[in-house]
C-alpha cells in the first residue's frame, strides 16, 4: 500500500459482457476529495464501467487493474468492495419486494460499517437525510424501490450514499429521469456528502447536473476508452456544442460503425 499511489486507480481496464468487449483500456485515477465527471454519448460504456467497478457478475474483466488504496479491487466480490468503502448509485435501482427501506438501510449500514447503530440514532439519521432530500418519511416503511418513481429511486440512492459514507462513490446517471427541482435536491444531497475523504466519480449524461456539482476533472468516454480529459472548461464546451465538434477535433466519429482513428 504505497503512500504515493493514487487513492483509486483504474489501469488499462478491459471488460466484456456476454463475450462482447465493451471497455477497451480505461485509465482513470481519482484522489480523495476529488470529483471526476465521466461523460460520453450513449453506448460508450459508461454504465459498463460502473458495473465492472462494483463487481457485477455479468461483466468479465479481461485485462487491467483497479486499485483502491493500493489493493486490487478486482479480487473482491461486490460485497467485499462495499465493505472496503466503495459505493455505486444505480441508474436503474431494482425493487426488493417485502423489504422495507428502513430495514434495508439498517442492514446495509451494519454490513458496511461492521457495527450496529442504535435504533434511535439510526432513525434520527435517516429522518434527517430524508428531510434534506425532500423525501417523505413514509418512504421508510415502503418496500425498497417498489412503486417508487424514477426520481424517488434516485433520491433513495443518494440517501444510501449519505448514510453509508463510502470512500469511493460512483454515481451512475443519478440525474437522469429527474425534473429540474429534483436535480437540484439530489445535487445538494451529493454536495452535502462529498468531502475531503471521499472520491467521487459522477457518470452523467446530462450536463445540467454538473451545473450544481462542480467537477474537478472531466473525462469523455467513447467506445470503451477515455478519449479526452479536462477541467471545467471542457464541461462548458460540451454544454454549448455537444460531442460532435470535439470528436471531429479528435478525429473520432460519434456514429456507430465508425472506426476510432488512432485512439
Amino acid at each position, binding site marked *: 500500500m504505497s503512500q504515493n499511489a493514487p487513492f483509486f486507480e483504474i489501469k488499462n481496464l478491459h471488460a466484456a459482457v456476454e463475450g462482447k468487449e465493451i471497455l477497451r483500456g480505461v485509465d482513470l485515477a481519482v484522489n480523495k476529495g476529488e470529483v471526476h465527471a465521466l461523460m460520453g454519448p450513449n453506448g460508450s460504456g459508461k454504465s459498463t464501467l460502473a458495473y465492472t467497478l462494483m463487481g457485477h457478475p455479468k461483466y468479465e474483466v479481461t485485462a487491467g487493474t483497479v486499485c483502491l488504496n493500493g489493493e486490487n479491487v478486482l479480487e473482491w*466480490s461486490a*460485497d467485499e468492495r462495499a465493505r472496503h468503502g466503495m459505493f455505486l448509485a*444505480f441508474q436503474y435501482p431494482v425493487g*426488493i419486494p417485502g423489504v422495507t427501506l428502513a430495514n434495508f438501510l439498517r*442492514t446495509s449500514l451494519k454490513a458496511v460499517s461492521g457495527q450496529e447503530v442504535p435504533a434511535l440514532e439510526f432513525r434520527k439519521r435517516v429522518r434527517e437525510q430524508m428531510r434534506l432530500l425532500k423525501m417523505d418519511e413514509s418512504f421508510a416503511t415502503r418496500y425498497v424501490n417498489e412503486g417508487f418513481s424514477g426520481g424517488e429511486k434516485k433520491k433513495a440512492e443518494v440517501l444510501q450514499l449519505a448514510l453509508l459514507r463510502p470512500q469511493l462513490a460512483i454515481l451512475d446517471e443519478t440525474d437522469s429521469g429527474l425534473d429540474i427541482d429534483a436535480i437540484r435536491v439530489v445535487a445538494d444531497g451529493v454536495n452535502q456528502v462529498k468531502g475531503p475523504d471521499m472520491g467521487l466519480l459522477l457518470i452523467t449524461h446530462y450536463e445540467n447536473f454538473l451545473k450544481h456539482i462542480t467537477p474537478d476533472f472531466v473525462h469523455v468516454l467513447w467506445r470503451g476508452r477515455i478519449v479526452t480529459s479536462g477541467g471545467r472548461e471542457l464541461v462548458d464546451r460540451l454544454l454549448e456544442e455537444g460531442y460532435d465538434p470535439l470528436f471531429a477535433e479528435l478525429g473520432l466519429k460519434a456514429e456507430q460503425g465508425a472506426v476510432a482513428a488512432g485512439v
Partner: protein
Amino acid sequence: MAKAIQEIGPSDYQYGFHDKEDYVFKSRRGLDRTVVEEISRMKGEPDWMRQFRLKSLAIFERKPLPTWGGDLSEIDFDNIYYYIKPSEKQGKDWDEVPEYIKNTFDKLGIPEAERKFLAGVSAQYESEVVYHSIREDLEKQGVIFLDMDSGLREHPDLVKEYFGTVIPPADNKFSALNSAVWSGGSFIYVPPGVHVEIPLQAYFRINAENMGQFERTLIIADEGSSVHYIEGCTAPIWTTDSLHSAVVELIAKKGAKIRYTTIQNWSRNVYNLVTKRARADEGATVEWIDGNLGSKLTMKYPGVWLMGPGAHAEILSVAFAGEGQHQDAGAKVVHAAPHTTSTITSKSVSKADGRTTYRGLVKVYPGAVGVKSNVRCDALLLDEESRSDTYPYMEIEEEQVSIGHEASVSKLGEEQLFYLMSRGLKESEAALMIVNGFIEPFTKELPLEYSVELNRLIQLEMEGSVG
C-alpha cells in the same frame, strides 16, 4: 389401573411422575377394532363417541390411499402405535434427540426447560403458571378452552352438536383415521359477543398430548365473537411418531371471526397429513395463517365453506421445502352463499431438491351472486433441482362473480442479489433478505415473537444447518 388424563394436575407436575408405572399405557402396534375400543375405554368416553370411532375405522379401512398428492406409499400402517398415553411419552432420553434438533434449540435461544419439553423429554414447564392465570380470565368470560378429551368429558352435548359436522369421517382416508383414533387437540367455545383478546396457544395446555399424532381440534365462535388460536410452535418437534394426521374443525357463527395460525415444523421423518376446514355463517370471517416448514411430506389444504351471505375467507400460506421435503399445500374455498369473498395467498420457497406444490380449489355454487375471489400463488426456486408445481382448480357455476388468479415462479434475481451485495451484504445474507421479503405478507400477520422466530428458522434453513 391407569389414571385418566384429566386427573394429572399441577401437583403431579410438581413432583414428577413418580407413579409412572400406574400410568403406562401403550396400544400395541397396528390398528383394528380392539385398539379403537381400548382407546375409547381408556378415555371413558360416551358411547356415541365409541360408535363414531368404530364407524370411522371401517371407513378408513375401506378407503384407498390417495395417489394425487405426495408419495404415501412408504407409510407402514401396521407398524404404528396409534395411542400412547402422555406419561409413557415422557420416557424419552435427551440423548435420543437428534443433533440437529439440539442445535436448533441452541440457535433459537430456547430455554433449557422448554427444550426438554419440546423434545418430549419432560412435562415440566414453567408456563404452567401462565396457563392457569389465563384460564381464570377466560373462565370469567365464559370461554371454554380445554384439551379435546376434557372438552368431550365436561361438555358432551356441546361437542356432540358440532364434532364431525365440518369434516365428516368419510371426507378422506386420513380424516377417517383421525376420527377413529383421535386424541388430544383443543376444544374452544367462545360465547356470543365475547372477544378473546390474547391469542390462545396450544402449548398453554402443557400436556404432551399437544404433540399428539392424531390431534382433534374443534373451535366454535358463537355469534359476534372473535378468537385467535395459534397451533404448534416454531421449534422443531422431535418425535419418533412418523405419521401425524390431525383434524381441525372451525365453526364461525353469524358475525363471528376466527383466526387460526399454524407454524408447523415437524422433524424431517414425519408424514403430516392434515384436514382443516371452517364453516363460516352469515357475515363471519375465517382466517387461516398457515406456515409449513418441517416434515418429510405435508399434505394440507385449509378450507373455508362460506355458508352465509357476506362471509369472508382469508387463507395465507407459506411453505418452505428444503432437502428431501415435499410441501403439498394449498387452500379450498367453497362459496355457497351470495356476496361472499375470499382471498388466497400462497408463497412457497424450494431449496436444494425440495418440492412445493400449491393445490387449490375455488368453488362457486349457482346462486352465489356477487362473489369476489382472488388467488395469488408465488413460488421461489432457490436451486437448480428445486421444484414447484401449481394445481389451481376453479369450479365456477355462477356468472355474476369476480374471480381472479395470479401465479408466478421466480428464482433469486441476479440484479436483486447484486444490488444487495453492493450494499455490503454477503451473497447468503442477500438471498436471505430476498426470501424474507418474499414471505413478508405472511410474516407480518404473525405475533411479533413468532415472526422473529420464523425469520431465524428461515435463516437456519437457508444456511442448510438444519436437518
